[in-house]
């Protein structure tokens, strides 16, 4: 999909990118990571010709980019930057519609597409008529992503897109970004300097230092087999725990061991159902499949009678949470099992502590 061959770039006498060769596969999310000034952003910007390169060749979609007009090339490659760069004088709709309009799409098609794309990035349709100044940082970033995806490019270039977002919202954005990527399967090149972000998001990671490509491999391979000391230091001491974090909550979702009821149902009827089926846990959902509350049947220690507990705001785990996050939520909640929801907050199942431990055991047995 994207092929860099012996690409070199100098700024004055300083070599910014030294003889890079790299093949980026279709539909994969490739991370460029390294300290600031290592050449990762320069490499990214060479792919859409924002920065010209001195030597070598870059092929995008079987065509050398030197043969393509830069403006045409960029219209077919989505681009998201840290500053986002939403245009404040245009509404969200107009911002997202820019590239389709540049490509002269029909108005009807544009309207349909924008409705679709806002839904994809989980923004309410009412956002279309808002202006960027009325949005929060996370919302702006979603609009930025929507704008980059609007004209259905096959390739997406992202330069530290979550860099300016506070840590809590960054985690949320990463989760929903992964869900979106699972759905759209674009070829994405993503620049970051945050190793946790790289491990969480990447299919493959390219580790870059002082203009040289140090290691380019699958995330698990890099974690288990760092090429040199630089990579080891970048990964940190806890790389075994990080390796565990490659597993996602979605890999452990169970579809049984609980029942679901409508949130309009009376508590008595829920209790009765649970006792009939001998099931200890029930979730109440609304008509949109959104999780509203939880019911638990627990054995009280003193009376040996079953206690019926109603929990109006249960802890939840998101599908894209990695196992570290899921574990930490369970510890914090003091629960052995927690419900799992997807990006649209729809209930998908539960996750059990015992299952995760089984996996960890398997791992330690192998090693």
């Amino acid at each position, binding site marked *: 999909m994207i092929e860099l061959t012996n690409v070199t770039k100098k700024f004055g006498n300083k070599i910014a990118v030294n003889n890079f060769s790299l093949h980026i596969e279709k539909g994969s999310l490739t991370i460029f990571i390294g300290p600031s000034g290592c050449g990762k952003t320069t490499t990214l910007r060479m792919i859409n010709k924002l920065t010209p390169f001195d030597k070598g060749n870059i092929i995008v979609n079987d065509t050398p980019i030197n043969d393509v007009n830069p403006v045409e*090339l960029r219209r077919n490659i989505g681009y998201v930057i840290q*500053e986002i760069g939403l245009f404040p004088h245009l509404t969200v709709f107009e911002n997202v519609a820019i590239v389709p309009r540049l490509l002269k799409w029909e108005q009807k098609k544009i309207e349909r597409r924008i409705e679709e794309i806002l839904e994809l990035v989980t923004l309410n349709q009412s956002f279309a008529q808002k*202006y960027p100044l009325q949005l929060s940082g996370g919302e702006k970033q979603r609009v930025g992503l929507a704008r980059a995806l609007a004209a259905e490019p096959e390739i997406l270039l992202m330069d530290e897109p979550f860099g300016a977002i506070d840590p809590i919202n960054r985690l949320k954005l990463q989760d929903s970004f992964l869900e979106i990527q699972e759905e759209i399967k674009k070829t994405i090149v993503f620049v970051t300097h945050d190793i946790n972000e790289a491990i969480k998001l990447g299919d493959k990671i390219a580790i870059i230092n002082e203009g040289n490509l140090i290691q380019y491999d699958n995330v698990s391979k890099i974690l288990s087999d760092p090429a040199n000391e630089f990579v080891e230091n970048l990964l940190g001491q806890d790389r075994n725990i990080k390796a565990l974090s490659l597993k996602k909550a979605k890999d452990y979702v169970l579809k049984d061991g609980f029942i679901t009821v409508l949130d309009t149902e009376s508590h008595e009827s829920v209790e009765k159902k649970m006792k009939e089926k001998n099931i200890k846990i029930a979730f109440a959902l609304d008509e949109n499949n959104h999780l509203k509350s939880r019911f638990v049947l627990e054995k009280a220690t003193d009376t040996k009678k079953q206690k019926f507990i109603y929990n109006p705001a249960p802890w939840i785990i998101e599908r894209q949470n990695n196992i570290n996050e899921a574990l930490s939520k369970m510890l914090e909640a003091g629960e052995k099992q927690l419900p799992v929801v997807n990006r649209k907050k729809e209930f998908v199942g539960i996750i059990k502590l015992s299952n995760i431990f089984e996996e960890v055991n398997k791992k330690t047995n192998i090693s």
Partner: protein
Amino acid sequence: MGFYISSRPNIAKYVINVASIMMTIPSLALYGVMVVAFAPFKLGLGIVPSISAITIYSLLPITRNTYLALNQVKPGMIEAARGIGMSKNQILWKIKIPLSIPVIMSGIRIAVVMGVSVATYASLIAAGGLGYFIFAGIGRANLTMVLVGAILISALGIGVNYILLKVEDWITPKGLKVKR
């Protein structure tokens, strides 16, 4: 001119300097220069030299504000516009200019209001106008006449300023005015 120099910093330096020097010439002297300059064409007195003087005087604020406005657009904005495939012209017309309207307009406003006060002197080179009341009043030691002239000129300046403020508000893109 502001548009032209906005992407040419080397030329811009000179243009802004020349315009600044023009501003340091006392306005009365500038009328004198204009009278001499237009004398060979038999236009030495009256409307033509007056309008020329006022135009030169207005140049600086308009040029400078236009130049500054186009250059204060955030680099991230331009970067994003280039990155999604807008051409240079599209970036100028669809991004830079709309974002610059408030600053460009305030330059125009300053120039017009200054023009109104500078125009007072035009009566000295036989172009008439409200300045006539002031200078005639001074000549005759008639305070009322001076005041009438001064108040009318102030009122004109304030009125024009108000109208231009409305125009500015009207043509500024809505997205730049919304509150969170």
